């Protein structure tokens, strides 16, 4: 099923060689058009909507456990109404608390910011921006969504079993996650977690394969690799990271499944749990951490790179200026992609890792800061002397850069093993990764949604709501996570639900209250955004021009509501890179425009 067969009805005749793959474009039923669709745009929207639903679930979990953190000991009878014995007496029970943070982490990291972010924008943008009618294999692409859907169903179902969902943290370290007797969450819930993640891995592999082959093989005429928009480059590296690291997680999880259910000793050794002596010897609990973080660290870049790509594109379009240092941006993406595979053990400095090995990982980890710094300086220079349109998408992109700086700098603390001895597994880590990965990527995603919403649905989002959304979220994010660093500096461990018995960590009561209140407000504003999103799909202002932002890239040469196949008639040919903004006194020059006779060179 190659790209060439997806032709608009009424355009060129179908190729004879592909006759076995006729698509019934002429009369598509609801099912093939919206449910089992093979159109990359529809699949992208499916990922986005599923991701949004998951984001609400994951966000709600954080509100619940923030209530516990901000007001430990206080009773909220409504919780008991909803959650029964999990919140006995209106108080969140420890098992429930741990289930909540585990699901919160898993859901937001994997289901929202991996599937929801790459899934949405890779599907939407890759064919549109490289000039292809669809993905290399639309069928695998559809499967990718449905595997994600199945993963979602399994994960959701684990919330409703009597022993509750997995509760060992999103990192599911064994032995805790391997021993049924060690925690309620390590019973059936953990098996479901593993199954859901296995399905998820399959989904992201199918997606990743497609993204890579589409980008490398299906670019339109003239679209050389160095003319690709940075979004595509970022999505490409994201897919490479995913394809090479998710299988390793899968192998780690398979071994975990064996240890849990068949009595093998991959991770288990010398254990007496609940007074019961287990026969396992010779296992290594640290082995799992290596396998997990071999995915886990690339995973944070899988989350971050698409956001970086979109931010580069949006900052350039809206400052009406080329992205500064395209090749440097590309080089730094490449460097990040390579280094991402070489730093995983910085999560394991205090596990008894060989100190020499530790020092190697310090070096490699701090090396990653160099390409990151290059990117920041290039974004700043892109804004410099621009003519900046402060649309909601631009604001979110600027917010992304701000958060990426703040969170990236605290990474320099943690990457330094000497400091990490003190800060590891404290609230400092929580603050760090929320800013740099959680909130920053969310900002990238919001920027992307505001920017490409007109392409997705042919309508605009309400801008006023967009501004409210941005300002509350930006201020809220800093209020929540900036002071949290101080808790970590005091050594306060993460995953503690009540600090009152501790002498060293109980001095932040007021701060925790403030954080909780702010996070509830921020959560409410996200609901406002979601309302805006769904309302605007049906009732938003209609887009009238094909190129509302005056952008150069190919997606804006398609009709306002492109059909399956994207372009009516031929796919346009590309003659230049994507960033000729403000060149020779012209505001923008689309990629499809041939180089003029006396155009200046750069």
């Amino acid at each position, binding site marked *: 099923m190659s790209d060439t067969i997806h032709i608009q009805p009424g355009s060129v005749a179908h190729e004879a060689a592909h006759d076995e793959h006729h698509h019934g474009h002429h009369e598509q039923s609801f099912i093939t058009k919206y449910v089992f669709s093979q159109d990359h745009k529809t699949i992208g929207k499916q990922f986005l909507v599923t991701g949004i639903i998951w984001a609400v679930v994951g966000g709600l979990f954080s509100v619940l456990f923030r209530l516990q953190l901000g007001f430990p000991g206080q009773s909220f009878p409504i919780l008991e109404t909803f959650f029964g014995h999990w919140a006995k007496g209106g108080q969140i029970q420890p098992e429930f608390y741990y289930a909540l943070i585990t699901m919160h982490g898993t859901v937001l990291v994997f289901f929202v910011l991996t599937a929801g972010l790459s899934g949405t924008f890779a599907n939407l943008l890759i064919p549109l921006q490289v000039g292809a009618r669809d993905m290399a294999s639309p069928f695998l692409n559809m499967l990718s969504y449905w595997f994600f859907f199945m993963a979602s169903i399994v994960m959701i179902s684990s919330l409703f079993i009597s022993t509750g969902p997995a509760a060992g943290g999103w990192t599911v370290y064994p032995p805790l996650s391997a021993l049924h007797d060690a925690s309620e969450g390590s019973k059936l819930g953990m098996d479901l977690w593993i199954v859901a993640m296995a399905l998820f891995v399959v989904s992201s592999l199918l997606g990743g394969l497609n993204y890579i082959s589409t980008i490398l093989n299906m670019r339109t005429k003239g679209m050389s690799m160095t003319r690709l928009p940075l979004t595509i480059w970022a999505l490409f590296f994201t897919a490479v990271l995913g394809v090479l690291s998710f299988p390793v997680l899968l192998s780690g999880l398979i071994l975990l499944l064996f240890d849990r259910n068949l009595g093998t000793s991959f991770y288990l050794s010398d254990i007496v749990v609940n007074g019961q002596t287990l026969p396992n010897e010779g296992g290594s609990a640290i082995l799992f951490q290596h396998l997990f973080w071999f995915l886990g660290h690339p995973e944070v870049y899988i989350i971050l790179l698409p956001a970086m790509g979109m931010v580069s594109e949006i900052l350039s379009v809206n400052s009406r*200026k080329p992205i500064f240092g395209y090749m440097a941006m590309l080089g730094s993406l490449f460097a990040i992609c390579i280094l991402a595979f070489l730093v995983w053990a910085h999560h394991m400095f205090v596990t008894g890792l060989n100190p020499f090995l530790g020092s190697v990982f310090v070096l490699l980890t701090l090396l990653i800061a160099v390409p990151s710094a290059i990117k920041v300086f290039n974004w700043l220079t892109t804004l410099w002397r621009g003519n900046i349109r402060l649309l909601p998408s631009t604001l979110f992109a600027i917010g992304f850069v701000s958060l990426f700086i703040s969170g990236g700098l605290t990474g*320099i603390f943690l990457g330094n093993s000497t400091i990490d001895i003190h800060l590891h597994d404290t609230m400092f880590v929580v603050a760090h990764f929320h800013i740099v990965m959680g909130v920053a990527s969310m900002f990238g995603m919001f920027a992307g949604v505001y920017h490409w919403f007109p392409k997705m649905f042919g309508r605009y989002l309400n801008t*006023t*709501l967009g501004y409210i959304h941005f300002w509350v979220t930006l201020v809220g994010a800093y209020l929540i996570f900036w002071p949290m660093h101080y808790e970590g500096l005091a050594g306060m461990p993460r995953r503690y639900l009540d600090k009152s018995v501790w002498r*060293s960590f109980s001095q932040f009561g007021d701060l925790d209250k403030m954080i909780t209140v702010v996070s509830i407000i921020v959560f409410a504003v996200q609901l406002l955004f979601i309302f805006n999103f769904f309302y605007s799909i049906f009732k938003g202002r209609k887009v009238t021009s094909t190129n509302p932002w005056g952008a150069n890239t190919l997606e804006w040469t398609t009709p306002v509501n492109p059909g399956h196949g994207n372009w009516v008639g031929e796919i346009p040919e590309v003659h230049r890179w994507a960033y000729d903004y403000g060149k020779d006194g012209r505001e923008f020059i689309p990629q499809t425009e041939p180089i003029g006779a006396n155009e200046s060179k750069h």
Partner: protein
Amino acid sequence: MQTFFIVAILLLGFLITFQIAKASEYVAVLRGEEKAKKQTNRVNAFMLLCFLILGLIGVYYCNERLKGKILGEAASNHGVLIDRMLYITIGVTFFVFVITQVALFWFAYKYQQSDTRKAYYYPHNNKLEVIWTVIPAIALTVLVGFGIFYWFKITGTAPKGAMEVEVTGSQFKWEFRYPGNDKTFGKKYYKNITGDNPLGQVWDDPYGHDDIYVTGEPMHLVVNKPVRLIIGSKDVIHDVGLAEFRMKMDAVPGTPTTMWFTPTKTTADKIKETGKADFVYEISCDQMCGRGHTGMRGEIIVETQEEFDAWITKKSPKYIDALKAAAAQKADSTKPVTTVSVSGVK
């Protein structure tokens, strides 16, 4: 009822915001979109500037409010190094933080859209790019240099004559063992663990006969005497977190880990220093280990050698208890004794 009101108010707030937002869209269309766009652009640019200024003030204010709440001076030799590294890093990164954030928001404000400005076509400049590759690289090399230097000092072998204490974590408590007069721990094997032999000591090993077992009370350490902790776990992964000493090490079942440091302040010193009579060094479990993780708390008392000696001489080794228990068992039954003579040495 109260919940109902809260929900109602939230909903109302939603509706109002939404109506205003919708209305503003219409107004914009009525007043001429271009004009309205320009105005929002100006407003947002101004707000970005305000955010920068208020944000920097906020950073300062936050620090003033909270700097007194993070721990005071480190109470161990390694802690001093770690704190020094921390402050160097704070210095470097704070400088970068201010410069880049100011540039970001200032540019966004200064170069906001205006009819009189044309964007400057500036696709690249190799010299600049090299500069901001090299400078961060140098800065990071310096940080890495310090970091690794301290790291090897901290993780290097403990000095000779260091005292040794074994720490064992299990859901959800800490147990300690001192090697006794022979300064050597006896062997142990996890399959020997029973109620009477909580660490699974192998009684055939004479080195273990004088080992002192302590639980349910603080670990005692001697001030200015290096101590090497041998850390293990019986069930899941725990972590010995010593915030006051700035030290931390995982407790992994099946793979013992170690760490060493020299406590430099007695508990009494700390009480004087902080003015808090209830001061005590705490051991926190820093690796999530199940439902009781939050409460997996241990205590440490740092004292002088004399005080320590007085404390430890009052303890009797577990072996003696085990012998006594065995004798008692023999006395009231003729069953063969199994608790004492366990052989399965690893």
